[in-house]
């Protein structure tokens, strides 16, 4: 069942001035698959997403790597044609759905915009899409403004707008972070279902291992601009082989936790790009770190079970 991947990111490197932000990040996503990128805030997840859309902030530039969309290198696409790629071949949704909708435009017009058509001409299609993302009473909602809708509904609208043109790839950057827990679960279910029904390749960015557990087929754990560990979600959750993954997993709140029990938090903080040293970037916070970790960068290597890990102590963790 080896589908040709919809999106391939190879060895992506990004820099701001002299400081590297993202260093050799690579992954691929097949149609209908949900791949999560997980890591603490400041790890470079959002800039990676922006690089895939080829809409990096002015200060940040790509210093290496390739992004292949349906086998085609997007760096070869001229900017004008790239506009047709965005929203048509790949779409993106964000953390704050209410702020991501134009306050003065009705939701129907904003969804129709993704089809490059006036709402009047595609009203039926927009209504069908609204129903598909679980909006009740779409005939009324279609003419409402974002401020009349809840955050969860706005995220459904964003999803409708992102998917109506049937893109091959959807990038969701913290799509549920601003929503409360029950709504979060509904939105994740929706993404999961739409990914399979429409055979969309979904890149889901989150800082929350709980979200990964809910939705992702595969996961790439990112730390300070590099991939620490990547592989099938089930394998990684069952047996993390990178200390950072293990600590992230330990930080998921569980139902069995007594309310007051202390959540495992990772000591210290993510280094900023200007502080990146020669060795493993997690070494300063890692319980297993030794002299070699501080001096040498551990390569991302296969461990034989379909996973890749960038840790010298991976075997010792088995």
């Amino acid at each position: 069942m080896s589908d040709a991947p919809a999106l391939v990111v190879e060895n992506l490197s990004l820099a701001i001035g002299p400081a590297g932000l993202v260093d050799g990040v690579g992954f691929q996503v097949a149609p209908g698959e949900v791949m999560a990128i997980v890591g603490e805030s400041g790890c470079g997840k959002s800039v990676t997403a922006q690089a895939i859309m080829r809409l990096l902030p002015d200060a940040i530039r790509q210093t290496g790597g390739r992004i292949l969309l349906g086998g085609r290198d997007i760096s070869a696409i001229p900017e004008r044609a790239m506009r047709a790629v965005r929203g048509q071949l790949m779409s993106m949704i964000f953390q704050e759905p209410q702020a991501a909708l134009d306050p003065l435009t009705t939701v129907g017009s904003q969804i129709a915009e993704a089809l490059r058509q006036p709402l009047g001409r595609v009203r039926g299609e927009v209504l069908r899409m609204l129903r598909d993302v679980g909006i009740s009473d779409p005939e009324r909602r279609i003419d409402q403004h974002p401020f009349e809708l809840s955050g969860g509904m706005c995220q459904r609208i964003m999803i409708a707008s992102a998917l109506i043109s049937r893109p091959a790839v959807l990038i969701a950057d913290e799509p549920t972070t601003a929503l409360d827990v029950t709504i979060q679960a509904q939105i994740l279910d929706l993404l999961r279902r739409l990914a399979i029904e429409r055979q969309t390749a979904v890149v889901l960015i989150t800082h929350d291992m709980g979200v990964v557990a809910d939705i992702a087929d595969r996961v790439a754990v990112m730390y300070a601009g590099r991939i620490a560990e990547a592989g099938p979600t089930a394998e990684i959750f069952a047996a993390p082989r990178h200390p950072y993954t293990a600590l992230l997993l330990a930080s998921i709140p569980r139902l069995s936790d007594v309310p007051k029990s202390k959540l495992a938090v990772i000591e210290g903080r993510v280094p900023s790009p200007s502080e990146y040293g020669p060795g493993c970037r997690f070494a300063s916070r890692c319980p297993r770190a030794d002299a070699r970790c501080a001096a040498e960068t551990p390569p991302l290597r296969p461990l034989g079970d379909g996973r890749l890990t960038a840790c010298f102590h991976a075997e010792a963790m088995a």
Partner: protein
Amino acid sequence: MSARFSPGIVLILLLLAAFVLAAAGADLLSPADPLRQSLLLRLREPGFASRTATYWLGTDDLGRDLLSRILYGARASLLVAALSVSVSLVVGTALGLLAGWFRGWTAVLIMRFVDTMLSIPAILLAVLTVAVLGPGFLKLVMVLGLTRWPRYTRVAYAATLQVAGLPYIKAAEMAGCGATRILWRHILPNIAGPLMVVATSEFGLMILFEAGLSFLGLGIQPPYPSWGSIMSAGRQYVTRAWWLTVFPGACLFVLVLCVNLFGDWLRDRVDPRSRGR
């Protein structure tokens, strides 16, 4: 956003509507031809009735009916203000949008130009340009329109910078919208509020500018009436025929006051702090 109309703002809107109606309906409302002179009827006081007509606001030094001239003057005033505000609004907003969207050297160039324009006293600039180009209705409109755009540019620039950084503009870019579409469909409507506030305050100023330039003989040319030129002609008779300066002056005062009060009301309504996201 609560749409509350206080009695004060209702009165202001009614007065403004009255001025607009007076200007638009000057042909129908005028009791006499504003240009018809009569040496026998020179400087008659308000309320003077001849055998054929009553001169409610009196007559001027050439025996023309003052009420008719004030009505036509309102038309000149509002027309010049509306047209010149439109010109400067379009020019200023376009430049502000460009500066705010492209930033970089485009913005530096445009905003330096704005600073330069704003450092020249506006009335001096207007007087100088009219002096060079010569007077006339269209030239007046162009001079005012093309010297008064910088304030719009400043406001449009700041507002565009702010709106362009908002998530929904980023989302539109991610959805593949081009710059033209984003500027036109998503940024312009969202910065229209503050621009309307500027346009209103400029509208009041333009009425004063037209009156001032016409008073100096650089605006609307005789024999066509403008409040400024009526007052200018009435200046020499101010002791004998007070109505020639008082009536147009009062109209000017009330109109500009209403425009400015309307502008204040508008500003409170489009205040970003009170707006829903």
